């Protein structure tokens, strides 16, 4: 399960940044890039909290 979540997170980050490179190279429209980034954001926030957060974060106060 944890591995699946990690794959989902990696996909989310991939969808966040890779489309912009494709826009730069002229192989993807800006609109599609914006849509894929929104999907990437949803994917990241739906999966990352479940494996990224540790029990004992560094205290900052």
């Amino acid at each position, binding site marked *: 399960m944890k591995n699946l979540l990690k794959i989902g997170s990696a996909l989310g980050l991939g969808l966040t*940044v890779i489309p912009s490179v494709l826009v730069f190279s002229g192989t993807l429209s800006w609109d599609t890039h914006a849509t894929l980034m929104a999907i990437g954001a949803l994917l990241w926030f739906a999966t990352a909290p479940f494996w990224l957060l540790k029990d004992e974060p560094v205290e900052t106060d």
Partner: protein
Amino acid sequence: MTNDNTRSLTDRLDAINEFDREPVTQERLQGRGDFIGLYSGEHVAGTEFVIGPLFVAHGVTGSDLILGLLLGNLLAVLSWAFICAPIAVSTRLNLYWKLRKIVGPKLLFVYNIVNALMFCFLAGAMISVAATAVGIPFGIDMPGLSDLYPNSIGWVLTVLAVGGVVTVLAILGFKQIARFSKVAAPWMFLVFVACGIAVLPQLGITSLGDFWAVADQKIWTGAPLEGRSQFTFWHITFFAWFANMAMHIGMADMTILRYAKNWKYGFFSAFGMYLGHFVAWIASGILVALAIQNSGEIAPGPIAYLGAGIAGLAAVVIAGWTTANPTIYRAGLAMQTITPNWKRWKVTLAVGVMTSITALFPALMMRLLDFVALYGLLLMPMGAVIFADFWLLPKLGLRQDYAEWKQVVFSFPAAGAWGLTLAACWGINVIWGLEIFFLGLPGWFIATAIYVSLSFFQQRNSAPESLNHPSREVA
């Protein structure tokens, strides 16, 4: 000397920090990954959407920007590693308790209030940043670069709504949001990168080879916008170095670095500097160049939308929210020293209201460079005091932590170093015209010299045998 009022004040201050008065123990030290994550997250914030564009507005050239950021961020990392981290890992105390030993509780009280006010203004800027994104779907006019006051009813309502949500969340669940911000950090950094790359073709850059030629013409042109001063390599260097002056040479990050396994962990601040204060500032500068080219609105929300659409707006809101939230919380902690009988939620509410009101004024956001420089300068002298007290006083045969040892409640060497340094910096600014971005460097040496000199004067009548055995705290 102590009296009832002083004991009351001391109790109030100590009660708020009761869980932080002991040095961090070995088993609670944190690993490298925690510090990399912490620094990366803390320095990829909503305000990066403002700072990069302001460099463009100040007419910096591309080469000055890149070289200035490389050098300035390096100096910032070295300041964390060589000035802040060694004292943090030797004492294992946070800034509050270390400073209390040196300056006494009454002077610490004054420092806390100044700190809280600065936190409120900083959180206000972050709420303004988030509001520029929230307002877009509602078609609200955004403030421009030259706007100092609220420009529409829509803006006022948006800021108050965002400020209200941030305040309520700060009251309800600070710790959960602090954890959420760690999740958001890697995504947010990539949003900056993606925004910068995706808009390059619209600026006429279709290959890497075009970049510098077009950047010189359209992004970092070397010509400031109307009403803005000309920035040079030195402005960028010093701004990058001192953007977090309160944290490194001001010693506020002792609170974090006391959890480090050794002082070399200070070098992990490089992740924050070179991801946030290099890549993100460059990316947001590219975005604002497109906004200027399109004659569009120059505010964080609109420029992020140009780069990433809805995801860009979400990044601005999340970045502003996650950074404003702990800032309001910390301001609340500091403010609680004035209102000891208030519940924590009441103090946070009061701070949130004050912060939201300051956020109404876009001047705070649009003049962020000046505010950040002022914020660091105001708090820096106390960092110099800690440095001098820890390293220099023992070498000169003087006692460290003199206020604690002598039960002094208001250390005049520290107060003198603070006040006279700020007065000297003001004088340097007025007489020689040295801009605020550069004042931190002479200010640090002035503060150190004044504190050491006044400590000589203060301790000259103390018993020699006690001064010859200073008690350096090593965990």
